[in-house]
């Protein structure tokens, strides 16, 4: 399980001027008024007539308002992450972020009304392109698709998937579905054809269960979403997504990574006895993960002995981890302080920028 035995999909040489890539920056809109101009007339009327304010809010109160850093609220009371000048000054410029992958957490794709979901996803995508991606060379973006309607999702990928600043489709890990299921394969095929990655980000807009029940506390919810990420990862592999789409790349964002080696040991071991169920897997399941999937670093695990973290990164493979800050959320990781100092040299460079440059093909 080392980086030398698994050829990453989409390996490139790194551009000389990139030294920090932040793979999880939450930039986006302030209120639904920002998005309405991008909706077709019928949905503009719908918003006015029904008082629709957007997808449902997350179900748990967070430890801070909107789960934001206390110092990330821009002047004027707008939503953290919605004021481009403020975000640029406080984060991109302050830390010399060379490239940032924007990951708006909106949840339009989780709307139960599939047509509203499709309209809101398109509006959000167009808003992001115009207000963020096309105004700063450093910024790359994620697009939403209304995944409950795979045909509409493919149409949206066809519509904007060629945009040079869009690098991935974005989903909540807790979307109430397992994304490996066959009904979604047409979406992954379309993403593969456009060379877009598939990103699964921590979070949910639907009740997130653990062991069959909703946990009582945000503390539990926050921690348990790693389990949901595990389930999504295992689903993608076992359902043969990477056999059907051999060039597809996926990234798990904000879901932790220290669990990866143990999960892969367990999955490979079980596969040895259960292979007849999934004859399309031609290799041990972990090989698909180490080849096709990457993980972002935040919230970085902080064991008392940082050597333990280093050992786990080495076990997973040096190519697997990409730095992310999660700005402006309360559990932000500082680009200068998050990685322990024992992570240095080539490994540090890989995590801070090279793995992301290779994975996303950033220039």
């Amino acid at each position, binding site marked *: 399980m080392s980086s030398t035995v698994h050829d990453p999909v989409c390996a490139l040489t790194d551009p000389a001027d990139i030294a920090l890539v932040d793979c999880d920056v939450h930039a986006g809109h302030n209120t639904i008024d920002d998005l309405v101009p991008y909706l077709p007339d019928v949905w503009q009327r719908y918003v006015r007539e029904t008082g629709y304010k957007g997808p449902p809010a997350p179900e748990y109160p967070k430890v801070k308002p909107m789960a934001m850093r206390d110092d990330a609220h821009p002047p004027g009371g707008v939503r953290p992450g919605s004021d481009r000048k403020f975000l640029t000054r406080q984060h991109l410029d302050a830390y010399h972020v060379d490239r940032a992958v924007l990951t708006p957490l909106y949840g339009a794709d989780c709307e139960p009304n599939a047509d509203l979901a499709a309209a809101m996803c398109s509006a959000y995508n167009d808003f992001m392109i115009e207000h963020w991606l096309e105004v700063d060379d450093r910024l790359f973006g994620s697009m939403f698709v209304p995944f409950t309607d795979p045909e509409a999702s493919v149409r949206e990928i066809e519509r904007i998937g060629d945009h040079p600043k869009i690098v991935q489709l974005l989903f909540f890990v807790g979307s109430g579905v397992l994304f490996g299921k066959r009904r979604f394969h047409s979406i992954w095929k379309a993403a593969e054809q456009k060379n877009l990655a598939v990103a699964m980000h921590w979070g949910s807009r639907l009740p997130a269960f653990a062991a069959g029940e909703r946990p009582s506390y945000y503390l539990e919810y926050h921690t348990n979403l790693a389990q949901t990420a595990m389930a999504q990862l295992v689903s993608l592999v076992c359902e*043969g997504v990477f056999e*059907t789409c051999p060039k597809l790349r996926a990234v798990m964002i904000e879901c932790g990574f220290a669990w990866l080696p143990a999960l892969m040991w367990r999955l490979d071991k079980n*596969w040895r*006895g259960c292979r007849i169920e999934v*004859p*399309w897997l031609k290799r041990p399941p972990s090989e698909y993960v180490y080849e096709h999937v990457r993980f972002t670093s935040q919230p970085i695990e902080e064991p008392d002995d940082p050597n333990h973290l280093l050992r786990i990164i080495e076990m997973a493979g040096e190519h697997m981890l990409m730095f992310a800050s999660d700005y402006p959320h309360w559990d932000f990781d500082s680009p200068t302080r998050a990685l322990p100092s024992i992570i240095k040299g080539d490994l540090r460079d890989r995590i801070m920028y090279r793995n992301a440059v290779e994975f996303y093909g950033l220039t």
Partner: protein
Amino acid sequence: MKRHVLGQLEDIEDGTIQARDVGGRNVVIARHGDRIFALRDVCPHQGAKLSNGVMSCSRKNARVGEHHVNMDQPVIRCPWHNWEYDLDHGTCLTHPTPLAVAAYRAFVEDGQIIVET
């Protein structure tokens, strides 16, 4: 090389396995049509007796949603963790690193089962 006569072919039903003592060795013999196979009767994983497992055929590599039996590759599945061993060579089909159980030359001669150890 020692040659052991283990009785008549019809003593073992097609598609089944039997535990045999072959010159003091525990051996599992298997019949697939008119062919006979013999493997050491110990799983290299955690030591189960393979003769307590089941005989079948492997599955062909397939596209998602397709399932095809590979009639040309009879296998024995371990009674414990279900690892699959190719009866021809004793190779484990689901282990990422080479792993095999000892395979003995076995054949039918004049209606008799012969195993060489």
